[in-house]
């Protein structure tokens, strides 16, 4: 089987499972984002609270996308181990790392597709706050967020397969929430400034709140920002692939 075929079949396998169990719950959460925004900020433009609505869009990549990555990509192995179905995948003629990358591809396709629908829907229901630039900014940054957070969550999941979600949440809270608010550290160990800067490309920072604007990497080119996103994702994929190739995951209670 060619590598491409391996990837596509593993991706298909993952996408088939996408709407099952607790994953379905978070998928609904994503799709309910437009309704949540509309309920929280009814007729935003008319009552002068557009800033709040804008903030919810600006925070979307670093919050909702982060959670989606942790809950979908993180437990790819954990779920199979808990259901004791990992065996069926390990005895297929597909190298483990290709199986894992194929499944990650499935998660990425499903989440990116959902975001491409959910974000514009939210923007329309909320009365088109910030105009097209905010939509474009949130869209781009959300795609980037899923692209980088999902491999990181997966890498953590392969290193801590029994507690993938817990470790993912701890990492998210520590790095992407707490440390991302510490200006110097945030630019070196967290991805929030990168995602915010991607948002700032079409949606200028002078319309943001002061705190958010502080985190931006000013005068950075799209190539640089996307380069950081892609290289971080590639590094996380490499760690996950290496871990899954070298480690045993078939341990059960009976030896």
């Amino acid at each position, binding site marked *: *089987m060619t590598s491409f*075929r*391996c990837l596509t*079949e*593993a991706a*298909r*396998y993952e996408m*088939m*499972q996408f709407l*099952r169990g607790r994953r379905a719950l978070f998928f609904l959460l994503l799709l309910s984002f437009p309704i949540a925004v509309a309920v929280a900020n009814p007729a935003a433009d008319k009552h002068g609270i557009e800033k709040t609505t804008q903030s919810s869009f600006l925070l979307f990549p670093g919050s909702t996308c982060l959670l989606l990555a942790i809950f979908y990509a993180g437990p790819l192995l954990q779920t199979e181990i808990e*259901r*004791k*179905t990992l*065996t*069926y*995948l*390990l*005895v*297929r*003629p*597909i*190298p*483990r790392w290709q199986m894992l990358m194929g499944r990650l591809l499935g998660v990425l396709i499903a989440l990116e597709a959902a975001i491409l629908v959910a974000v514009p829907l939210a923007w329309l229901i909320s009365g088109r706050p910030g105009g097209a630039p905010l939509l474009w900014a949130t869209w781009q940054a959300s795609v980037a967020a899923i692209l980088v957070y999902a491999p990181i969550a997966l890498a953590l999941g392969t290193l801590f397969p029994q507690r993938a979600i817990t470790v993912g949440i701890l990492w998210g809270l520590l790095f992407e929430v707490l440390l991302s608010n510490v200006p110097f550290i945030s630019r070196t160990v967290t991805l929030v400034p990168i995602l915010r800067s991607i948002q700032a490309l079409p949606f200028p920072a002078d319309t943001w709140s002061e705190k958010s604007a502080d985190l931006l990497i000013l005068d950075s080119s799209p190539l640089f920002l996307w380069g950081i996103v892609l290289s971080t994702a590639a590094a996380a994929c490499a760690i996950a692939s290496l871990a899954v190739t070298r480690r*045993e*995951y*078939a*341990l*059960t209670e*009976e*030896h």
Partner: protein
Amino acid sequence: MMEDGVIAAQDLSKFFGDVVGVNDVTVRVKHGITELLGPNGAGKSTFLKIITGQMKPTQGSVRVLGKDPWREANLFRRIGFCPEQDALDPSTTGLRFVETMLRLHGIAPKEALKRSREVLADLNLADVAERPMGEYSRGMRQRAKLAQAIAHDPELLILDEPMTGLDPEGRAFVSRRIRAWAAAGKSVLVSSHILHEVQAMTDEFLLIYRGRIRASGNVREVRSLLDEHPHRLLVRCDRPAVLAQLLLAEGVAEGVDLRDKGSALAVRTRTPGPFFEKLPDLVERGGVRVGSMISEDDSLDAVFRYLVDAEESA
């Protein structure tokens, strides 16, 4: 390759910290049907996980069909594995399950669907192929697991406790299928902790106990050691008293006890061969509906102890 056997392990050990999984196993499994025997916790599952590339050995080496199962994923085109655990996605249909597994073997979608239907029909699952596996009986799930193992037409089938939880009819069916696969030129390694299941399928066995291969060869030699120890079975059925009378009258049971408020029958027999041969007829004659049959037979442990004692005193 065949000179070396389909499976060749050399000084194979697997440790989990201080716990021994398998210990210094050197063994060759020949072409044909071979039974891997041992009580629960003896190391059977660990050995099977190593030869199916799910675990890597701590020491030693293993070759399956001449290849290293941990490193060479392509080997799994030639191997089918049916795991012991009764773990299947309850919301997936049997057809979708087998088709998905076939597609992961690189088989084109149309061919995978066609072959899935054929193999499920072959295992008497055609009628329920499009029903979620959550609605399957234990026997159906067992056959669905077998279907994914054989669907890609492997050279070597590795089956981990395929009889567990099956009723007598189901056991007989699986046993027949295993013999048919072997007759078609496949090699089959079947693990079991129930000795009498072996006789229906093969004379070749490996006996594993506390992680070591204690004996291998012809099953009759081991069986003769068992004759001094009665086999114990627990049969859950709707008319245990009727079944008890028939078994005693036929002389295939040495003793019987009603259990669980009369919903189960504990049977002791020194002649398991005739017992299993006659049981289907007796069940039919008495109009008894058998829900399940579990072996309480720990006389195999006695054989293991005997072998271990013999080995230690030697």
